[in-house]
Every structure is written in structure tokens, then in C-alpha cells.
């Protein structure tokens, strides 16, 4: 599924300084019953965000109006657990285009890249600086520059670069997905398949 191109994102950020945020927290299994990709943002962090009667939990960051923005900043090992792409869909559908952490689980990172959410891995020290900056000023802005592969805390000018492979970077910049690429080399795949028995 195609998604919006990603180039430079300047936004305030929502802090979630918890480690090992797993995909069951991002979107609990009972909300995976849809057959279409829509509405998952409503259930993002469902059980941290709402009481069992559906009323919002006031202390949870998504319910705190002083925090907003298109960037979610999470603790170490963000997205561990299940392969459910619904977790990345929920993050995107809620309105985030970028997740920042000091460490990502593999499948979640892949899923994000495939749906147009940019995972930005920073050093633990830089992550702490971001959390501190948001604590000082909830409206503080971060700039995520994909062409330059940098993330900057605009208030202080502190900057760090991040990794992304050239292929995925190209996809994100242009809004391409992997299937576009694979369909273009289909003949080569078919030749390979003929020589690969079941």
C-alpha cells in the first residue's frame, strides 16, 4: 500500500519513557479482527489509554493535552513481540510518522518502514536528551531530516545522525513500496523458482 512521501519532519513529540513497549500494548490482540486497514489508531495503546469501561485514563500521555505531535519517543526495545503489522498501522493511523527509540525490535522496525512510519534509532544518551527537552518544554520541536539522516532538538541545536539503508531510504523519500520493486523483477523470480523445487 502506498503511503505519503517522507522527507523532513518538524514536529513536537509525545514521550513514552518506558522500556520494552511490546506490540500487545501498542495494539492488543482483541483489536486485530478487522479485514481492512482502517481505524486502528483508535485502539493504539488501548489498555494503557482507556479503562475497561472505555473512559480515558487521565495519567496516560496520549490523554494529556499538553503533549502532541507527529513523533512518538519510546524507551529501549520498542515494539518487541508479535509480527502484527497492525501495531505499525495503529501508530500511523493515530497520526505519528516517526518513532524514536534507542533500540527497536526487528519485525516492528521492518513493519514501520513498510507502512511509511520512519523508525529513528538514537543513542541512549541522545534519547535521554530528547526526554529531558520535552520535560522542560512539551512544545519543544524535533526535526527529523531523512535526506541528511539526522535528528535535531531544535531548542538546543543538539543533533545526531541515524542509520537507514539506501534502498529503504529511497522508498521512504519516494513513497514506493517493496512490491513495486519485486513486480519489476518478476521474470528473474520466475526463473529462480523453476530451479527451486517445492
Amino acid at each position, binding site marked *: 500500500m502506498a503511503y505519503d512521501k517522507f522527507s523532513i519532519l518538524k514536529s513536537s513529540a509525545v514521550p513514552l519513557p518506558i*522500556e520494552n513497549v511490546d506490540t500487545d500494548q501498542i495494539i492488543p490482540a482483541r483489536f486485530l479482527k478487522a479485514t481492512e486497514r482502517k481505524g486502528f489508531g483508535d485502539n493504539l495503546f488501548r489498555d494503557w489509554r482507556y479503562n475497561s469501561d472505555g473512559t480515558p485514563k487521565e495519567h496516560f500521555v496520549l490523554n494529556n493535552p499538553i503533549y502532541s505531535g507527529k513523533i512518538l519517543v519510546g524507551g529501549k*526495545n520498542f515494539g518487541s513481540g508479535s509480527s*502484527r503489522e497492525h501495531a505499525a498501522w495503529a501508530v500511523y493511523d493515530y497520526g505519528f510518522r516517526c518513532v524514536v527509540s534507542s533500540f527497536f525490535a526487528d519485525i516492528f522496525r521492518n513493519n514501520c518502514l513498510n507502512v511509511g512510519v520512519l523508525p529513528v534509532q538514537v543513542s541512549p544518551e541522545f534519547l535521554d536528551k530528547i526526554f529531558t527537552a520535552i520535560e522542560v518544554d512539551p512544545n519543544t520541536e524535533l526535526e527529523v531530516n531523512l535526506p541528511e539522516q539526522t535528528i535535531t532538538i531544535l531548542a538546543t541545536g543538539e543533533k545526531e545522525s541515524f542509520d537507514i539503508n539506501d534502498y*529503504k531510504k529511497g522508498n521512504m523519500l519516494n513513497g514506493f513500496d517493496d512490491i513495486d520493486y*519485486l513486480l519489476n523483477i518478476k521474470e528473474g523470480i520466475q526463473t529462480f523458482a523453476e530451479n*527451486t523445487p*517445492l
Partner: protein
Amino acid sequence: MSKTLFDKVWDSHVVQHIDNGPDVLFIDRHLVHEVTSPVAFLGLKNRGIKVLYPERTFATADHNTPTINQHLPVQDPLSANQLKALEENATAYNIPYWGLGHKKNGIVHVIGPENGITVPGATIVCGDSHTSTHGAFGAIAFGIGTSEVEMVLSTQCIMQPKPKKMRININGSLNKAVTPKDVALFIISKLTTSGATGYFVEYAGDVFKNMSMEGRMTVCNLSIEMGARGGMVAPDEKTFEYIKGREYTPKGADWDKAMEFWKTLYSDSDAVFDKELTFAANEIEPMITYGTNPGMGMGIKNDIPMAEAVEGGVATYKKSLEYMAFNEGDAMIGKPIDFVFLGSCTNGRIEDFRAFASIVKGRKKADNVTAWLVPGSHQVEEAIKEEGILDILQDAGFELREPGCSACLAMNDDKVPAGKYAVSTSNRNFEGRQGPGARTLLASPLVAAAAAVTGKVTDPRELMEEVYA
């Protein structure tokens, strides 16, 4: 150049390498279930393309299916709709489909090996992180997202950067009552849930050589819980014996040809791993988890560690114990429990039911315990009946349910209520995993059985002087 087992399988499936990018990896066999596939099929429809090789894809219903009254229509309309979508998609694209009630139906990672879909040296994917299970046969098997499910359906390939390689060696003999589940929970407790992220793991040494195929599946299944994309064990005579004659394994001359390749599947003696870890088998005790990720596990007789003694953030650790309503320094032995779940792609195979039965035989289920015993497939269910295990379970006051993922992820009605404790043979103890507010203690079938008959966390060794050699 010398190669690891992983290299040999990976390199033989690379269709194209992209510089500073991923490899285009050919996928031999693709497993599909109802939850992570509908949006992928919708994508095909929107692009106006077909499934390229339907004979390489297999579909089953397992994640949100009921485990009682499977002959009746599914009550939950959303689940019923998802099951209907899978059936329609499988039919429309000519994919073999083993739905609810079909004799081959069961948990996707249980039925793959049972039917010979899983073979050594293959690349196997599924929209489920526990696809790592199939690595037990020397296959490269890992979980993928729905976009990737669509890629495999449409082109039989996915695009993946080649992971780093790790080998975990465990030599020596395992202690009494230490099962493959305990071996895996031990490794995860040492590595943490992110310790193997970015790696593919090979399990080597006496312990894995001597392990049954079912046991190897349990260990490989849990590879993802330490962050690894997958785990594998080099195939041996035990592997070939297990798969021979199953429906989808090669036959006759094809078998002989396949064996030529399979016999080359081991890490060369001078192959280099990015990381290598070694543990001694006798370090491992029967394990139990006390927190909200699978890395928070310990020997069952130990006390819950103090926050300062563990790696990672103190605040996250305390939040986890608060959710569990446990305190630092608590003993786990003797903690009262409410539910026991035997099943899942981790421990829902026949060997797991044999182990559970060995403890409950001649005893009675504790009155305070609700037990859900869920076979991984109809084939497992049949074996439970044929081997007389069902009689043992029923005499002890247990009932057997019908196959499915069940309370492992609680998408169906098998939900542990808020605040209740469940000793589970499944794979994740995340907050709310087994139902909103549910508290999960991961353990082996032996520990689950000991809890089921005593109503509390109990060392299974105390119950197995005579019944278990």
C-alpha cells in the same frame, strides 16, 4: 569459504542482492492464517494481481477460533467475518485451506511440521512471529508483517537485509524436570528480550542434539522472545526420520535428491559467528517467569530479584512487578494461582501432553484452578486419545478442548480475567496478553501440571519421585 548452517540456506535462496539494501529472498513455503492475511489479499485485489505460486502457500484458521463447539457457527461476528474472508480468499486464489473442522486444522506452527510442509533447508514465512518454530528442522523460518505477506503472495519473495549470526552452545546433561521450555526460558533470562535482536540463532551442543523434534520446536519457537528473528538446529537422522513419508515431503527420487542437499546443512567447523555464547546444561533449573516479559524468568525456587540487581530501567521493572502484584524478594513457590493453560505453538504438541499427564496421573485438579488444555491440532488431539492420555486427564478432573491458539493471545473467548494468575505453557507474559489485566506466569508443561493439581506454584520435582523417571 566456510559457511554457517544459516549462510548455506540463506545464500541458496537469494534471487538478487541490493547494495546497501536488502536481499531479495525466495520463499519456499508460506503459511497463512486469518488474522494477518485479509489486508494482504485486499492489496492483491487492489493491484489486480494473482497469487504467483498458490501451491507454495497453505492456509489454516487458528488465532481467533473457539476451542469449544467448533461444529457450531462462530458466535463473535468479527471473528466469523475474518474466518469467512480467509476461506473466500483461499478459494479464490486456489490455496490449500484447512479451516475449522478440517482434520488437518490446528495451530499453523503445529500443522506445518505434521504435514511435512516444514523441511530442512527451506525458507518458510508466516504472518506470525512464532514462525521461528520451523527452524527446528534446519529451515530458515521467521515471522513477517502483512505487507510482506502480500509480497510473498504476489511474488514469492520478500526483501530482507541478511541478519547477523549467533550460536548458542549448551553441553552436558539436563537436570531432572528440566524441559526444552526451561532451556529456552533460561536462555532468554540470560540474554533479555532484546539480547538477540538483529541475529539469527543456531542452537548447538549435546542438549539440542539429544532433544526430540518437539523439544527443538519449543526452543526455536521462543527465539523471537529474545529478539532473534529466528533460530535453527542442524538437521540430523532424527529430523529426517520425523519428516519421512509426511504428505508434503518429497518422495522417491525427489527425496534422495533433497537428502543430498540436506546432508550438507551444518555449520562448517571453521565457520565464523558474529556472536557465540556457551552455557552448561546443569546450570538450568525448572523455570518460571514473574514479570511482564519473557526475559523476567528464573529458577522456580529462586526469589524475585531486587530492582537494583537487574539490567535495564528500575522504573520499568517496578511497573512490571506492580502489574503482577508481586514484590521484590518474594518467593514464587507457594504463590496461589487461578488458571492453568496447556497449549499454544510453544507447548501444544503430544510430548507436552505426555509431560502434563505424567504429573496429574493419580492426582486431582485443585478446586481453585480453572484449567484450559488445548491441543495444537486435531492430530495432537487424536494422539492424546489413542495414547490413553485423555483418560488420565479426565480421571484427574480435566477436560480437553478443541485445537487453536486459544488463551495464548486470548483473541477468542479464552480470556483470563483481570487480576487473575495463570500458569501458562505459552510464549508471552506481556500485560494483558491473556486478557485485559490478566497476570501470566510462563512455565513448562511439568510446572503447569504441578500448579494445576496443587493450586499454587509448586516445584514439579516434588511430585515426580515415582511417576517420572
